[in-house]
């Protein structure tokens, strides 16, 4: 079985999913030869875990590309091997039915099926997760949140569920709750660099969305976001996402640093500058709190000094430029970046350069 089936890359793009599902007939034919009676079949059957992971991923790829027949065969193979009552197989079967369901009514009957299963065995985690996913697919995010909170009450160390909860809150624009959920994820997996970066992104979004008229909060949120991006860079070398965030946060954190003099920036033609100008006017209206070593009320760290912010910004710019350059040159060890991300980084750098020219 191909490597991509056993270990599919994150967020499989459609083209790769198509290629994976196109292998289905070959793989299924290969393995559907006449099987020997029980004791002999143990000798011939390949019992590597990779085989079954491969079937599972093949089934997901087939469901995605609409090859329901092959998905059905994969599901039957898994059922044959692990039995009807295996929790993971039950969840996969539920997923298959969800995928082929015609309308909302069919989905509702699947939902009732999940409820039945859970009434018999409330500890069936895969089915509980499917139930949340189904509620989300049925456009009932509030019910999904309630169900997920119930699941987390029962199993508070499930990082995957916490991450899903953060996403659910985010779709409902509940930033504070999303940040709390991500903090829980980080308590369980403190070295997850992608979650640190995600945290930075959400903090950035939330401070822009909710604190536009409270400078103290805005600054605190941006500084916190900056720290998260720094941590993600610390945990992962040449992490494009982290450097991008760091560079993105800077202009705002910069203008909200207490040491920043209010004399720069007079042009009005650039929309970005207009926002910063707007923020500047806000800043001059409100009285700034004196920078303390730690905020006594929240126990937060003091915002970093302007020099630190500037140096971080320089570092991010240099690193982004290096990534863009070496990726374009196709150097080995630098060619694994997502092209869209590299283009976005190049654009961010270009925007910055333009500003300096003016």
């Amino acid at each position, binding site marked *: 079985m191909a490597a991509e089936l056993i270990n599919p890359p994150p967020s499989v793009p459609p083209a790769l999913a198509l290629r994976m599902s196109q292998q289905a007939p070959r793989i299924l034919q290969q393995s559907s030869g006449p099987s020997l009676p029980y004791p002999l079949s143990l000798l011939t059957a390949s019992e590597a875990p990779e085989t079954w992971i491969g079937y599972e991923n093949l089934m997901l790829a087939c469901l995605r590309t609409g090859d329901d027949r092959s998905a059905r065969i994969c599901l039957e193979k898994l059922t044959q091997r692990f039995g009807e009552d295996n929790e993971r197989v039950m969840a996969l079967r539920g997923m298959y039915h969800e995928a082929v369901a015609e309308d909302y009514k069919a989905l509702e009957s699947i939902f009732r099926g999940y409820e039945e299963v859970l009434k018999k065995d409330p500890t069936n985690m895969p089915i509980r997760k499917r139930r949340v*996913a189904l509620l*989300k697919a049925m456009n009932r995010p509030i019910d999904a949140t309630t169900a997920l909170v119930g699941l987390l009450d029962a199993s508070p160390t499930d990082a995957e569920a916490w991450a899903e909860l953060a996403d659910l809150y985010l779709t409902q624009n509940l930033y504070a709750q999303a940040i709390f959920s991500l903090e829980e994820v980080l308590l369980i997996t403190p070295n*997850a660099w992608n979650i640190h970066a995600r945290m930075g992104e959400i903090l950035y979004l939330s401070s822009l969305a909710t604190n536009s008229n409270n400078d103290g909060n805005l600054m605190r949120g941006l500084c916190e976001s900056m720290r998260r991006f720094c941590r993600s860079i610390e945990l992962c070398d040449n992490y494009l996402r982290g450097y991008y965030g760091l560079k993105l946060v800077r202009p705002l954190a910069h203008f909200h640093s207490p040491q920043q003099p209010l004399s720069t920036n007079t042009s009005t033609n650039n929309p970005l500058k207009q926002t910063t100008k707007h923020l500047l006017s806000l800043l001059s209206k409100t009285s700034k709190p004196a920078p303390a070593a730690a905020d006594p009320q929240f126990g937060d760290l003091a915002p970093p000094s302007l020099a630190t912010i500037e140096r971080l910004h320089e570092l991010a710019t240099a690193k982004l430029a290096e990534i863009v350059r070496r990726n374009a040159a196709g150097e080995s060890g630098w060619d694994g970046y997502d092209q869209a991300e590299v283009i976005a980084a190049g654009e961010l750098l270009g925007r910055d350069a333009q500003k300096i020219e003016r």
Partner: protein
Amino acid sequence: MALLSKALNAIGLLLLAHAVYSAHEHSALHAAAPSASSQTPSAAALPLDITLETLASVLFVCAGLVLGSPALRPIQWSEWAGEVEQEEGRNRQGRGKVGMKEGEVVGNPFRVLEERPGFLDVRAKRKEFADWVREGGSG
């Protein structure tokens, strides 16, 4: 490299077997003729060529094993993470490694936190794929 390590291993094992056999024959010969060996104690000692053969064979096998071992992973977390990210990106673009050794763990262990296969929304994925096909299936 794989061929070299295999050849070194084969030669080393062959030499080792030969050295062991020679040593055994040597001791058997002297045990059969105790009178000859008792006169000169140095004759009972192992000849130099057998000793050298043993040492050389062990060295060969060591070198073969070291050369044949898979590439080392960085022991610094950040370096390792950077490598993992690159590898995944290459896989996503469809130019990853073709062969996968058994038991080899590749990939970012934290990507499940963003993928969340347990909560996969199949219908949305199906729709996304259908849209992609409708748009001409590129990108």
